[in-house]
C-alpha cells in the first residue's frame, strides 16, 4: 500500500536492508543478526516474514487527497422503477458483444436506445447515477446518441466526465445539455464567459443564446468579431444559421468582406437563404441574365446562356471562381448563381409560370440536369415547399424511380422541406410504385413513428417481396428501419405475416422461414417499443390518463450505425 504510512522507524531501514540482502543473495551478503552459512537464507526469510506481517498489521490510513467539488444536484424526477430496469437492459446489449451473424427473432436493443432516450427526455426524467458510466460509454461509441444521452445524463455526467479522460467528449459537446451549456441569464456573466471561456464553451454559449435571443447572440459575436481567429469566425458564423432572419443581413453583408475565403462563402450562403437580402437581389439579376424562355419555337423552351466570366462582384458574393476538376467553369458558375438566387424571381422572369410549369418546360442544349440540380439546392437552402413539390414531381412517375435529373439524396433533401404528412404521402406513393429497393434514404426523412400511409406501404412492399421469393436480408436495411420507426400500434396487422408460408416453386430455398423470423423480430420489436413507452409514463393517480404510446418520439432516426 504505497500511499499508506508505514510503521514508525527503525523498521523501514531494516526492511530496506532485508530487501537489499535478498536481491544480492546471502552468499554475497550476510543478513543482519545471522552468520554466514546454510542457516543464513533461513534467517533472512524468518526476519522478512516477521517484518512483512508487522508492516501489514501496522498499516495506517493515508492522508486524504483534495476532494472534488460535489456534483451539482439534478432536480429532475427519478425514473419509474420499470423504466430504470429497462435502461439497464438496453445498456447491457452493447454492439460488439453479440456473436454476430444471423439476428434471429430477438430485437436489437441497442437500436432502441435512441427512442428510449428521446422519450425519457420528453418526460424530463433524471438518469439513475449508477447507469451513467454505461450511458457515457454508449455515447462515446456512437456520436448520434450523444445529444440525447448527454441531455438525459444531466449535470452529474459532466461532473463525471471531468474525472475520466474517456468521456471528454461530453465536455466538448454540451449543447443544451448540462449546467455550462445553458446560457446564463445575467448579461455580465454572459459577456465574461464569452470573453474568457474556452472555444467549446463559447460555441455552446453562442448556440444557446442564439436559440433564445437571436439578436443578442449576434451582438455578442459582433463585439469581438474583429479579434477572432479565422477558424473560430467560421464556426461562430455557422451558429447563426439557427434563427436566421432579415436582421442579420447587415452583419452578414459586412462578413462578405472577410479576410478568410471560407468565412466569405458561409456569409454568402446565409445571405442567399434570405430572399429579400441585397445579395439575393444581385444573384437574382445575374441568374436571370443566364436563363430565358425562347418563345420563337413551336413549344416554349428554356434556353441557357452560362456566364462567360466570374467577375470580382460575383466572387465577393461568394461565387467560387475555380471549378473542381472535370467540370466546365461556365456551368460551375451558372450552378452557383442559380442556387443562390431567390426562387421567387423565376416566375417573373419566365413568363409568369408556376414552379410546376417551369420545371415541366424542356431545356435546350442539355442544360436541364445542371439547371434542375441548382434549383433543387436552392429549394433546400431556402426551404421552399412549392418548388420542392414541383421538383419532386409525382411519386408514381416512371422517372422518379430511376436515375433522373434529381437523385435520391436530393429527393430526400427536398422532402425535408415539405410538411410531415405530405412527405409521408409522397414516400408511400413512391414505395407503392417502385418498391423498397430505392426507398431507404427516403424513409430516413419520414417522421417517427411513421404515419399510417408509409407504414402500410412498407409492410405491403415487404409482403410482396416475400411472395416474390427473395431472401429477407436483401431488405435488411428497410427491415431495421421498420423495427425502429413503424408505429407500435401496427403490430396487430402484422400477425398474419408470422406464419411460414408454403414455398412456391421458384422461391429461394428456406426463404419462407427466414421471412417468418424477420417478421417475428419486427413484431417483437414493435411490442417492446410500446412497452418501453408505457414504462416511461409517469406514475399518475388512477384517474389521470396515461400518456398515449408513441406520442413522445420527436427524433428522426438516422440509418442504423454500427
Amino acid at each position: 500500500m504505497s500511499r499508506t504510512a508505514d510503521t514508525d522507524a527503525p523498521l523501514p531501514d531494516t526492511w530496506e536492508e532485508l530487501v537489499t540482502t535478498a536481491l544480492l543473495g546471502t552468499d554475497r551478503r550476510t543478513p543482519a543478526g545471522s552468520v554466514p552459512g546454510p542457516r543464513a537464507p533461513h534467517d533472512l526469510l524468518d526476519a522478512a516474514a516477521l517484518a512483512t506481517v508487522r508492516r501489514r498489521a501496522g498499516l495506517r490510513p493515508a492522508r486524504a487527497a483534495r476532494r472534488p467539488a460535489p456534483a451539482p444536484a439534478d432536480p429532475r424526477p427519478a425514473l419509474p422503477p420499470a423504466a430504470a430496469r429497462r435502461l439497464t437492459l438496453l445498456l447491457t446489449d452493447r454492439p460488439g458483444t453479440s456473436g454476430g451473424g444471423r439476428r434471429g427473432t430477438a430485437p436489437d436493443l441497442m437500436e432502441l436506445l435512441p427512442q428510449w432516450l428521446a422519450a425519457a427526455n420528453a418526460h424530463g426524467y433524471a438518469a439513475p447515477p449508477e447507469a451513467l458510466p454505461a450511458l457515457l460509454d454508449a455515447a462515446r461509441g456512437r456520436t448520434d446518441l450523444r445529444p440525447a444521452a448527454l441531455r438525459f445524463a444531466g449535470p452529474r455526467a459532466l461532473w463525471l466526465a471531468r474525472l475520466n479522460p474517456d468521456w471528454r467528449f461530453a465536455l466538448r459537446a454540451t449543447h443544451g445539455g448540462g449546467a455550462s451549456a445553458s446560457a446564463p441569464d445575467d448579461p455580465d456573466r454572459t459577456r465574461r464567459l464569452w470573453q474568457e471561456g474556452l472555444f467549446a464553451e463559447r460555441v455552446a454559449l453562442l448556440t444557446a443564446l442564439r436559440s433564445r435571443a437571436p439578436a443578442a447572440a449576434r451582438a455578442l459575436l459582433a463585439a469581438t468579431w474583429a479579434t477572432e481567429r479565422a477558424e473560430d469566425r467560421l464556426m461562430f458564423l455557422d451558429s447563426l444559421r439557427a434563427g436566421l432572419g432579415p436582421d442579420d443581413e447587415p452583419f452578414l453583408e459586412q462578413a462578405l468582406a472577410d479576410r478568410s475565403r471560407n468565412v466569405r462563402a458561409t456569409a454568402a450562403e446565409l445571405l442567399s437563404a434570405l430572399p429579400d437580402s441585397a445579395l439575393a437581389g444581385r444573384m437574382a439579376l445575374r441568374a436571370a441574365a443566364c436563363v430565358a424562355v425562347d418563345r420563337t419555337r413551336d413549344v416554349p423552351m428554356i434556353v441557357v446562356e452560362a456566364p462567360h466570366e466570374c467577375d470580382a462582384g460575383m466572387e465577393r458574393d461568394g461565387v467560387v471562381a475555380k471549378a473542381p476538376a472535370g467540370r466546365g467553369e461556365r456551368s460551375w458558375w451558372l450552378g452557383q448563381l442559380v442556387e443562390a438566387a431567390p426562387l421567387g424571381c423565376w416566375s417573373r422572369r419566365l413568363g409568369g409560370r408556376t414552379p410546376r410549369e417551369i420545371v415541366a418546360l424542356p431545356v435546350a442544349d442539355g442544360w436541364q440536369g445542371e439547371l434542375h440540380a441548382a434549383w433543387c439546392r436552392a429549394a433546400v437552402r431556402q426551404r421552399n415547399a412549392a418548388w420542392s413539390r414541383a421538383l419532386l414531381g409525382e411519386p408514381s412517375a416512371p422517372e422518379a424511380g430511376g436515375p433522373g435529373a434529381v437523385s435520391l439524396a436530393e429527393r430526400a433533401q427536398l422532402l425535408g422541406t415539405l410538411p410531415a404528412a405530405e412527405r409521408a404521402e409522397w414516400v408511400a406513393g413512391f414505395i407503392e410504385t417502385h418498391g423498397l429497393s430505392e426507398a431507404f434514404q427516403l424513409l430516413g426523412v419520414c417522421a417517427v413513428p411513421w404515419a399510417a400511409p408509409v407504414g402500410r406501404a412498407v409492410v405491403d412492399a415487404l409482403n410482396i417481396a416475400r411472395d416474390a421469393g427473395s431472401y429477407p436480408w436483401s431488405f435488411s436495411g428497410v427491415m431495421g428501419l421498420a423495427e425502429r420507426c413503424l408505429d407500435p400500434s401496427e403490430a396487430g396487422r402484422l400477425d398474419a405475416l408470422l406464419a411460414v408460408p408454403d414455398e412456391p416453386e421458384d422461391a429461394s430455398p428456406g426463404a419462407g422461414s427466414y421471412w417468418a423470423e424477420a417478421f417475428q423480430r419486427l413484431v417483437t420489436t414493435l411490442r417492446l417499443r410500446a412497452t418501453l413507452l408505457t414504462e416511461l409514463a409517469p406514475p399518475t393517480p388512477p384517474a389521470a390518463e396515461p400518456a398515449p404510446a408513441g406520442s413522445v418520439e420527436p427524433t428522426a432516426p438516422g440509418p442504423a450505425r454500427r
Partner: protein
Amino acid sequence: MTEQGVRWTVDQVLALAPDSASRTAGSRLGAAGSWSGAGRCGEGTVWGLCEGGGSGPYRTVVDVADPSGPAYRCSCPSRKVPCKHALGLLLLRAGAEEAVPRARAPEWVREWISGRRATERRRTGDAAHPAPGPADPEAARRRAERRAERVTAGALELEQRLADLLRGGLAAAGESGYGLWEETAARMVDAQAQGLAGRVRELGALAGTGPGGPVRLLEECALLHLLGQGWLRRERLPEGLAATVRSRVGLPASADGPPVRDHWLVLAQYDTGDSRLTTRRVWLYGTDSGRTALLLSYGAAGRAPDVALPVGTALDAELSAYPGAGQPRAALGEQFAPPAPTAVRPPGTTTARALVRYGEALRDDPWLESVPVTLERVVPVPDGDGWQVADADQDTALPLAPAARSRPGLWRLVAVSGGAPVRVFGECGHQGFTPLAVWPEGPGEVVPLC
C-alpha cells in the same frame, strides 16, 4: 410476497449469466415477443416457450425459489447453465409484471416439478438416515497420514528451493524467469499441497514486475516460508492457527462449525478464475449476529458456479463455518425462505478502524490478503493515477487496490457518490481497498460494483 412470488431485478438476473456472451444473448431474449405461453406458479416457478432456430420452440422452466438455489431446465442444446433462454425468461419476469402471468403449469412443467420433488425427498431422506460413515475409519486415518507425509515432503522441498533462491539472490532468480516457478508449482501439486502450489504460481507472476517487484517478491517468499514452517511445526501451534495452516496449505476441510441461523444480507457476488475453473465469492452479512461470512463455490469451464445469490436480497438461512481461526469462509446450510429484497444496510466504520481490523485479523491468519469491511461516510477521491476512498469527516483515506482502478465498478462508485459521502462494502488489505458494493447517501438500493 406470496401473492407476488419471487421476482428478481435485472441486475440480479444478469449476475447469474455464466459469461458476457450469455448475458447479451439473454438480454435480447428478455422481451415479450420472443416468448409464448409464459407463466408462473408457486413461489418462483417460471416457464415459457421460446422461438428457436430449430424445428420447434424451446421449453424453458426456472425455479428461483428453490431452497437449494435456482434450478433451470431448457430443451435447447446449450451446455451453459443457465442458458440464454433461462436468463431471457427471468429478464422477462423482471421487466414487466404482466409479461408473465400467474397460470396453471402445463404438463411438461408439472413433470419437471414433480421430478425435482422426488429428488428432494430422496436427498432429505438420505439426510434423515445418514449414510454409514466411512467404511473403515482406520483406512481413512492411514490415507490422511500418507497425505500429510507427502505434504511434508513437499514443504521440505519448497523450503530448500526458497533457501537456494535467496542464497543466489532474487535479482539472479529474475533471469531464470517464469519456468522456475511453474516447475516448483508442479512439484507442489504432486505433493497434494494445492495451497502451496497456488502461492508459488502467484510468485511467478510477481517475479520481474516493475519497480515494486522485488519488495513484493520478498514479502511473498517470506510468507510462503512462514506457511511451510507452520506446516512443519503444526503440532506445536494452537489449534485455531493449526487449522488455518492446514487449509492454507490445501488440505480439504469440511464446514463443521455449529449452524448459525440469521438474516444474511447478500453484499456482493463476484467471479474470478481462468478458462478451467471459475471461483465465485459471495459475501454475506448476518444482521443479528453481526458476522460477515464468505461462500465459495466453483464451476468448471463455461459453467457458472451453482450458488447464485442476488445482491440486495436477504436470506433466512443457516451457515456453518469452516475450521481455522479468523476464517470468514462458511457453507450454506438450510434455507428457510428464498432470498427476498431488503432495504437493510450493514453498519459501517471509518478507514482507520478498517485497517485496525485487518491488522487484528492478521494475528489469527498472517497470510490474510484482506478483510471484509463496510465503510461509512466515505467519498471516492482521485489521487494522482489512482483513487482513494476518503472519510468525509476526517483527513484520512484508503487507497483503492491497483486492480480495482481498472474495473468498471470504480466508475459506478464515483457516479453513485457524485462527491457526496456513501457507504461502501469491500475488501480492505495490504494492497488497498477493493470496493464491491455501494449504497447512496439518501434512500436507494445497493449498487453492485463487481
